[in-house]
């Protein structure tokens, strides 16, 4: 499998001189299976440069797995140029939205209303299919299988796991580690802790032993108290999770939009220094736009 990062920024695109090394586009990850089938994880603004890179291959069939439909994970979708060219095919997968009672098609076509974008969905030339996924539903994409698990974010967010010929990668989408909503002295504390424990076990099992874990690492532990409940992870939380799950390599992504390259590299080093490397620990790295990883 080959993984290429086209967008690694969280929340909002941040072009400019201070983000040149890691990049300013929002989340979009290209995964190629061994048979070269095209899987795309999220459709942030990084999806536009990805689209341009696909020209030599047209016509294409792309399998887009959406973790959740916050702006920074879908904003590139209307600019996926193969959609305007006959012969291409885009299969879109994602969760149901219980708050709006809408499936993935209804949520995404809302983005193509004329007041937001000049081309209506009916005018797209490519063949577009929508598949609303149940939790843990498995999708076969050529020689790979893709499955999902609900993570913890203000809206339903699927983390995706791709397995291909014994190699595996998990992308969390946006995810905050679970915390108890009760205080230790509350009578409900223990019951809630039990549910968290069960869920953590399911999350760890989902990513057990994967070659690559790509994890939302928006915050520092020092930022976190002010941002609790916003649905994002920390360096320290992800290092602990990757260790627990026996992950081989951990990539920190969804970089804070206000974090310049120098600061990002520094806080990453500081986090790693807090957790000295021990035998069997995952290798921990920052994502950057254009980075290609082969496993």
């Amino acid at each position, binding site marked *: 499998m080959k993984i290429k990062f086209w967008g690694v920024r969280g929340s909002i695109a941040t072009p400019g001189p201070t983000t040149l090394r890691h990049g300013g586009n929002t989340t979009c990850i290209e995964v190629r299976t061994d048979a070269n089938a095209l899987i795309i994880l999220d459709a942030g603004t990084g999806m536009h440069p990805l689209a341009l890179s696909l020209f030599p291959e047209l016509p294409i069939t792309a399998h887009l797995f959406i973790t959740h439909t916050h702006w920074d994970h879908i904003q590139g979708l209307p600019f996926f140029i193969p959609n305007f060219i006959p012969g291409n095919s885009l299969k879109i997968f994602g*969760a*149901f939205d*219980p*708050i*709006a*009672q*809408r*499936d993935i098609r209804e949520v995404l076509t809302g983005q193509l209303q004329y007041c937001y974008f000049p081309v209506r969905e009916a005018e797209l030339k490519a063949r577009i299919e929508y598949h*609303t*996924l*149940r*939790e*843990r*539903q498995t999708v076969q994409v050529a020689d790979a299988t893709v499955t999902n*698990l*609900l993570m*913890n*974010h*203000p*809206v*339903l967010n699927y983390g995706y796991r791709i397995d291909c010929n014994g190699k595996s990668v998990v992308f969390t989408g946006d995810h905050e580690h*679970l915390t108890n*909503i*009760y205080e230790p002295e*509350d009578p*409900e504390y223990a*019951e*809630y802790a039990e*549910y*968290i424990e*069960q*869920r953590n076990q399911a999350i760890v099992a989902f990513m057990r032993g994967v070659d690559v874990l790509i994890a939302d690492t928006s915050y520092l532990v020092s930022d976190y108290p002010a941002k609790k*409940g916003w*649905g994002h992870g920390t360096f320290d939380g992800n290092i602990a999770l990757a260790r627990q799950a026996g992950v081989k390599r951990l990539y920190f992504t969804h970089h804070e939009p206000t974090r310049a390259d120098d600061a990002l590299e520094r806080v990453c080093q500081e986090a790693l220094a807090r957790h000295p490397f021990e035998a069997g620990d995952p290798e921990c790295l920052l994502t950057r736009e254009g980075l290609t990883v082969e496993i």
Partner: protein
Amino acid sequence: MGPSKKELPRLVEALPAFPPSVCRILKLTSDINCPPREIVRVLDQDPPLARQLLRLINSPHCGLAEPVQSIRQAVVIVGINTIKNLALTVAPIEMLGRDSDRTPFLEGQLSHAFAVGLIARQLARRLGLPERETSDFFIAGLLHDYGKIVLHRLFPTRHNKALALAIKKQLPLHKAERELFKLDHLGVGALLAEKWGLSPHCARAMGGHHLPDDPDSDSPLPDCVHAANIIAKTVGLGVSGNPRTKTALPESVARRLGGTLTELTGSLGEIPAEMHKVQLFLNAWNATPADSA
């Protein structure tokens, strides 16, 4: 059997208890920093509401790998924000539809009440009232016709006759009700407001929403509910069971609210979309077997 004067005490006895969850959820969620456990606590104290939420979360649409058994477990799996936002829509529906077999009339009432609540709140916002005060307008709008629902539930046959009579004679419904009941839904609404100890403004919205002009009223709430009722009927949101629709607001109401019927109707914003969502919830509800929670 309709209530006559001497039957009134028995009627009051049969009136439903006030379901406070809606008010508490609205108040709690108007504060973005509200602790999640407070929201869960409200749901803990309202098992029918909690059951409805679990039904929606466990519905096949939602697609959870394993059904959740309790609200606390649901918070861990789908998150407090999903629970909170679902509760905001489900609690008012549950409040109006509680214990009832849905008939087409009650279903129409439910969406009408929802529409009037949303519009009354919008009118309050339009007047520049602070957000924390606007939830009362939503509640008052939601409850303004509750007397109708109660009459219909307690005396379905007779109330159906009143509905038919209103259509046949083109009467306002409260007049048709009075021919059959000696008491109309406004009277029942006033009794309810009294039994539940609601604010005088809310009581006026429930007991006098067809007669808005009250020089003593120092709150825009009765005006807003009165206007919202007419706007909802004008734009066709929900079914009120009342055949006659006014085509204008009373001049005094329009003046106090700062707009004609057309102008106010033009400032509904997201409400039609919100009503569409309410309808989707009602559909999801009806599609899920009642004992699946």
